[in-house]
Structures are given as structure tokens and as C-alpha cells.
């Protein structure tokens, strides 16, 4: 997502500006202690610093839920909209202002349940933006309801006898959609890999879909516990064209070789397994981007009036 094009509306900026971490810090984060979202926020802020994204040129769009408070904790432009609808808003922003850097932050309820239609079509539009699915397998803000990614049998307030259905696999779904161009998975407890993934996502031209496995210390403390405690339970997809996070190589030795240009293999590895798999499943930067397909030249008011006049001629008596 690295278009360094100057905004039409703000190219008056000429002096060199250097942005430190404080330039990106919004309100103090009010997630619970131990929530994986803190780690994701830190990684995103590190990315903003490292890429030196102008805060006024960056928009974080979210829906509703714990994770969707994300934009409030940054000092970029933020759009904290309605439940499940972050993607349409981001589509509108990117379609009309392709030069802006757009990040979308959703939870598993947002993306995989109430907003699932937009998810499928957002992947298909493949607009140049980073989409983060912060997946803690539960509805947190509304206090412990089963989400589409809750493990089967897991008890919640809405399904106290345990979740009735097998969970939806967000990676498989995304990889099944026409025009998917970047699909990765990472986890909040592997910060180096998380950061490297965000960076690769940002650098990708097209919609970069990143599912981040995220711990909820209040409602789902057990779900990722084994994977957190035992690095052997985490399999890292490895490839020269994949996501490089050498810092973790010594700890996470359970590796799978996977070429991210191989869609069939990506779909195979994306299947639900006993292990947690992190890394780049698929990347194809050649997929068309909707905002480019639909890009149109800018017309002045006079030019538009001229064209309108010609059109009125067609209706003239």
C-alpha cells in the first residue's frame, strides 16, 4: 500500500517532517490488561514511524467492538463507524482519495459475521489498503458471546452448552474469493512476526488481508494458551518470498516451506489444523485494484458544465 502520491488537496506541504512515536499516539488505550490488542497497536505505531506516514494522510477505519476502538488510540484520521461496515466506508475513502493510506481494523464479529458480505466483496475489489482482522474468537465488548470463529464446544453466554457449530476459517474463506491478492496470518504474542507482517501488508499493492490471532484475557484465555506456551505448536510458513522475521527463528523452529505464489498450496495450509500457522499464505501483486480500474480524470467545474450542456442538447426540444 505504498503509493507515495501527494494528495491533491494537501500538496502544499513541502518542508521535511520527521515523525516520532508521539506523533502517532492518540488517547491512552483502554483495553484490558493482557489484551492482545495492545501488542497490535504497538506494532501499527511502529509501522507508522518506520514508514514515516504523514498522520494527516493516514486513515484508520474500524467497525464496532473492542478492536474497533483502535483508531481512537492513534493520532491519524480515524473513522469509528458502525458494526460490520468498516469495509464499505474504507472503499468510499479509497475510491475517492486513492492517495490516502487506508487501514481497516475489524474484529471477528465485524468481519466474519455481521459484515461478512462486505468482507467477500472487499477482497474482490482488492483496493490498495491494509485490512486487519483482530480475531479473539469471541465477542468481547458485549461480554462473551459466541462468534463465527469460536471453537466448537466452547461455552459462552449465548451458547452456554458450548458452541454448536464448527468455526468458520477466515483464511480459507478469503483465499476462496476471486481476486484475493495478499493473505497472511500472525499472532499478537509474536511481536516481531506481527510487525514484519504488517510491514509486508503495507508494502503490498492491493488489499492485504491479515488475520491476527489475538488473546482475550477475560473471555477466551485458554484458546491460544498452548500455542503461546509451546512454540512447537506454532508453524511458521517460510519462503524467500514470504514474510521475514529472523528474530523468531531460534524460538519458532517448526517451519513449513511454502511458496506464497502457490494458491492451491496456500488453501491446503490454510485448513484448520492442530497447530497455529503464521506467515504469508498467498500474494499476487498483479491482481487489478478497483480504485485504479475505476480511476477517472479530474474535471473542472467549467469542463463539467460543458459536458452537461452537450448532454442537455440531446434532450433539447
Amino acid at each position, binding site marked *: 500500500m505504498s503509493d507515495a502520491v501527494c494528495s491533491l488537496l*494537501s500538496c502544499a506541504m513541502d518542508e521535511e517532517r520527521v515523525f516520532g512515536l508521539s506523533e502517532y499516539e492518540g488517547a491512552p488505550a483502554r483495553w484490558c490488561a493482557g489484551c492482545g490488542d495492545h501488542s497490535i497497536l504497538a506494532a501499527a505505531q511502529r509501522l507508522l514511524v518506520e514508514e514515516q506516514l504523514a*498522520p494527516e494522510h493516514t486513515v484508520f477505519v474500524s467497525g464496532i467492538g473492542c478492536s474497533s476502538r483502535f483508531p481512537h488510540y492513534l493520532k491519524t484520521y480515524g473513522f469509528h463507524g458502525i458494526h460490520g*461496515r468498516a469495509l464499505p466506508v474504507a472503499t468510499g475513502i479509497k475510491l475517492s482519495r486513492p492517495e490516502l493510506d487506508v487501514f481497516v481494523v475489524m474484529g471477528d464479529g465485524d468481519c466474519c459475521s455481521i459484515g461478512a458480505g462486505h468482507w467477500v466483496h472487499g477482497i474482490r475489489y482488492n483496493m490498495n489498503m491494509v485490512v486487519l482482522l483482530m480475531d479473539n474468537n469471541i465477542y468481547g465488548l458485549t461480554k462473551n458471546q459466541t462468534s463465527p470463529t469460536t471453537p466448537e464446544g466452547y461455552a459462552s453466554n449465548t451458547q452456554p452448552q458450548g458452541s454448536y457449530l464448527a468455526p468458520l476459517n477466515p483464511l480459507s474463506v478469503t483465499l476462496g474469493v476471486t481476486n484475493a491478492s495478499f493473505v497472511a496470518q500472525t499472532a499478537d504474542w509474536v511481536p516481531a512476526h506481527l510487525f514484519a507482517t504488517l510491514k509486508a501488508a503495507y508494502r503490498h499493492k492491493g488489499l492485504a488481508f491479515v488475520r491476527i490471532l489475538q488473546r482475550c484475557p477475560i473471555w477466551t484465555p485458554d484458546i491460544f494458551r498452548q500455542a503461546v506456551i509451546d512454540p512447537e505448536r506454532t508453524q511458521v510458513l517460510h519462503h524467500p518470498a514470504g514474510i521475514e522475521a529472523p528474530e523468531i527463528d531460534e524460538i519458532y523452529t517448526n517451519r513449513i516451506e511454502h511458496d506464497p505464489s502457490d494458491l492451491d498450496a496456500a488453501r491446503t495450509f490454510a485448513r484448520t489444523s492442530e497447530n497455529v500457522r503464521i506467515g504469508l499464505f498467498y500474494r499476487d501483486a498483479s491482481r487489478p485494484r478497483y480504485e485504479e480500474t475505476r480511476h477517472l480524470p479530474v474535471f473542472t467545474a467549467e*469542463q463539467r458544465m460543458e459536458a452537461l450542456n452537450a448532454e442537455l442538447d440531446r*434532450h433539447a426540444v
Partner: protein
Amino acid sequence: MTTRTTASPRLETLPEHTVEVVSDSGEGAQKCGQIFGSVSAKMGNGCWTVEIIPAEIQPPARTPGSASGVRIRIGSEPITNWGDEARLVVALNEQVLLARHRMDALAEDAVILIEDMWATHSDESIRAAWDAAMKEMSGRAYRFVRVPIEQQTLTLTDNPRHGKNMFILGLLAWIYDRDLARVRKQIAHEFRKKSAEVIERNVALMELGVSWAEANVPFRFAVPPPDEQPEMVVMNGNQAIALGAIAAGLELCAMYPITPATSVSHYLGEIFDSVGGIVHQAEDEIAAAGVAIGASYAGKVAFTVTSGPGLALKTEFIGLAVMAEIPLVIVDVQRGGPSTGMPTKVEQADLLAALYGQPGDAPKVVLAPSTMEECFHCMITARRIAEALRCVVVVLTDANLATGVTPFPRPALDARWHSRQPDQRPVTETERPYAWDERLGLSRRFIPGQRGGMHTLTGLAHDEASHVTYAADVNQRASTMRSRKLAVLQSTLLAPPIVGPAEGDLLLVGWGSTKGAIEEAAARARHEGLAVSSTHLSFLSPMQPGLKEIFKGFNQVMTVELNYSDRPGDPFITEENRRRGQLSLLLRAQTLVDIDCWTRVPGQPLRPGQILEEVRERLAKGDAR
């Protein structure tokens, strides 16, 4: 009646005439009627068309349910509605004619040109159906002219389904003395995407109709156009909305297909690119609203166009736009409801949904154009208001405006209609994204890309800095500020004009597409000596000022609307429990005047004659309330 040659047909000069062309769906009656209407408008006649649309794309042929066509009312003066009954009908079979007969769409002594092949058809059941239909219609003084339409058409084409309509066009062109050069030109325009061969054949078929009529039809009607008039354009309301959107400088139309709104995007899809605009076909109605909101938030001016079910789906997003003060224009082309209702039929029943559709207090501006010309201009107004007030503007049109074609004075374009880009100067540290002016409720809008303006917009209750807060005083103030904007707008509006004397026995009040029918009914009532005036509201939220004062001049005030109300006198209906027409409900609440209503949900435009009848009855009864 047998065909015969007449040297000099009887010529009647009339101030206006109403024509219908009906056929089985797919036989091209609409195309024929559209060309006839366009040519008439281009010759300077007043004109108003209404489509007669079957429910399905391919309903069974030769059934009343298959009736497809168009009504064209032409006049020497401007025509503002579809009139009462058709005075001349061309029908391609007796079943579609029967459908119109059963709807009381035809004048007592209507002239009916009908395809005569069915009367003598080899299929016995068809002959029987013809006889039964003729018997059913025999109580009327219809004057039938049997025309061998298919037989004539077959002399020039192998496939009469694609040609009978052009033959009929020729009949009408001769009967109404239309300018044949214009008819040929209009045929070429309508079939511009087809080959030259198709156009030539259609012109030849039309000319065949002309010569057949010349040799066989014993009458002609002249509806002379006025000598002089301003430069005019001819289009339907959805085209006017699309062109108005361009004139207003709107740059993005996000939509999802829905009848009868979709043709706005069809037309925009053809021409928007050439002026730098984008039609985005979203994955659903909700996304269409979201995309428009996202684009508007990012500084472009966007709108979305929908109909009732779509408006319902957009509800939550509209609430967000109100709460976060994001400019947004929503066009709702109303159709019959609730639920899927009557998708192709007209109704004015989304008024309360437009005003009050959002849970929570969500003040919005609601406009209702009443003519095709207003469809064009209201888009410019809507954009202006949306941006000036940082608010949502709902434009309520309906299926009658959407598909009706009429001429109106060509708009004199003005580049100032394109508002300037929003203020993009850097924001200073002390400025806030919702620094509401205490008096006006207005605040400066910060747009992504604008330095120093970074904030997180939210649908949660928020303070001036857009920080989430549930503090009682902040929420009270923010709600007041969002509401205040409507009062500020209202202070700039004019009272609606009264058509007719400012005092009298009865005032009719309307909104939207019923204007022409109401005004015509009131004028006819005055002509009969009744003290009836009318007024028409173009702003429904906020209401125009001076209404209470206007109402004081009349003994009775009654709204006329195309929505549902209980009829007084029906079982269980009392003054207390009666559910009233939507505008009357609003007016009663706003003015405390005892305003009655007369409303219907026929799925078609109101006829002036129906309204007049109600007016007569009411005034004959004295104080009906």
C-alpha cells in the same frame, strides 16, 4: 367497422388529449409511446407520460396481466399530470385493452384502435375470448376502429413483434398531425444502438402506418402547440436527477439495483465517466450508503439512490452520518410498500421513514421535488444544504416522477452550482472537529489530508473534540446543536405559495409528484364556483414557515397524498384511533390545526377528476369534520 377511404377526415381541434398505447409485454408499446411523447414535446406541446408496467418481464401473452404500455397526455399548455381517462387508445389485443377498461382508465366514449386479427382468429378459444371481452366492454360507448396491424406490418417485416409498434406510431403521427421529420429523427435516436437497416425498416413501418391511417381513419385530432415558448428539454425524473447530480458537482453515486431508482444509475453509468464521475455498484444497499459516506468523509461529494426497501437497509448508516455530521445526499425514489410492496408502482409512503427512520433523535433535511424540472434543481439544493449544514439530505421522488417524461425549460447552467472544495487550510491546535457555533450549531469540517485536523470520527456520543463521552451535559448539547441546524435552515425558507385565493372553504395541501393533479383539481373546482385553493410543500423537514397563518384563511384544510389512511366511517375507525396520511400527521403535530386528509394507495398517480370528486363531496356536506 370496415376500412374505407375518406377524402376529408373530420378534424377536431382540442386543448389537450390523452392517448394510451397498450400491448403484450415485449411488443414495444412503451417505445412507441415514448417516441410519440418526445416528438410532441419537441413540437412544443405540453406533455406528460406515465408507463403502464406489468409485474413480470415476460408475463403470459394475451392476458390482462400482460398489459404493458404508456399513457401520453399532450396539450397546448404545459401538462402537469397524467389526467383522468384516456380518450384514444391503441391496443394490440383485446385482453390488454380489457385490463385498462377494468381499471376505469378509458373515457366513456374513448376511440379505440384495435388489432382486428383476433376477432377472426383460427383458434376458437381466441375468438371466444375476443367475444367475451367485447361483451364485457359493451356497456360503454367506446368507438372501435379495427386495424389490421399485424397484416400490414407483415408486408414489411417477417417478425411483427418487432414492428407493430412503429406501424402504430405512424397511425398516431397521422391522427395527431405530428411532424414526420421529427418522428423519423426520433426513431433514429431511439434505435441508435441498432443497425442502419433496423432504423430504415422502422421508419418505413411508421410511414406505412401514416398512409394506412390517411386512407382509412375518418378523424384527426389537432392539439396545436403554443406559438412561442422558452427553450425546452425533455426527460424523465430519474434522468433529471442524474443530470442534476452532475450540475450539482456530485462526483460519486454509490448504489445497489432497486426498482424504480436504478435507472438513475443506468443513465449516470452512460454519461458520468465523461464528466469525471463514478457510479459504484455496491454489494448491497448498506454498502452503497457506506461507500457514499466514506467518500463524503474523504472530501468528495457523494450520493446514493434507492427506494423504500433500500432506505430501510441504509437506516443505521444514515444515523451515523447524522451523528458524525457527514454530508450525504440520499435520493429515495418511492414505490408502493411496505416490504417489497409494488416495486414498479407509485406511492408517497416513505415520508415518515425519511424523517424518523432512525432510532434515536436523528434530524435530517427532507426535500420533495414535485416535477421533473424540480428533480433536476433539487439535487443542487440538496448538495448545498448537505455541505453547508454537515447533514443528511433525503430527496423524496417517486415512481411517477421517475418514469414520466415531460418537457421543461432548459436549465441555465451555472458553474457556481459546484461548491468549492471544502476549506483545506491547516487546522490550528486549538480547533476542534465539532466546534459547534453556539447559535447556529455549525462547525468546520476536517477532511483527511488536512494537516492538524486528525481526529477519530465516531458514531458514539462525542464532545467537540470527537472524544467519546457519555456525559449528560455534552450529549444534551450535541443533540441541541444537531437539531439547531434545521431551525437555522428553516429560518431561510419561504412560505409555500398558495395557488388560488388566500381565503376560502377548502385548502388542499400536497407534496411531491401529486402537485399537478391537485392544482388541476383545485382549478376545476374554482371554475365550478367552489372556494378551493391549494399549496404544495417542497421542504418536509424542516417545514416551511407560515403554514399556520396560511391555514387560518380556510374553513377546512385537507392533505391529498398517495399513502394510506383509515377512512372515517369504516368499522372501528374513530377520530382517536384513525391512522392518518403522513403529511397530515406532521402538519397536525406542527401546527395544532385540525387538518384532515384524503389519501389513496392505488399504485398509480392520482387523477385530478378523483380529487375533484372528493372536493365536491366534502363541500356539499358542509363541515365534514
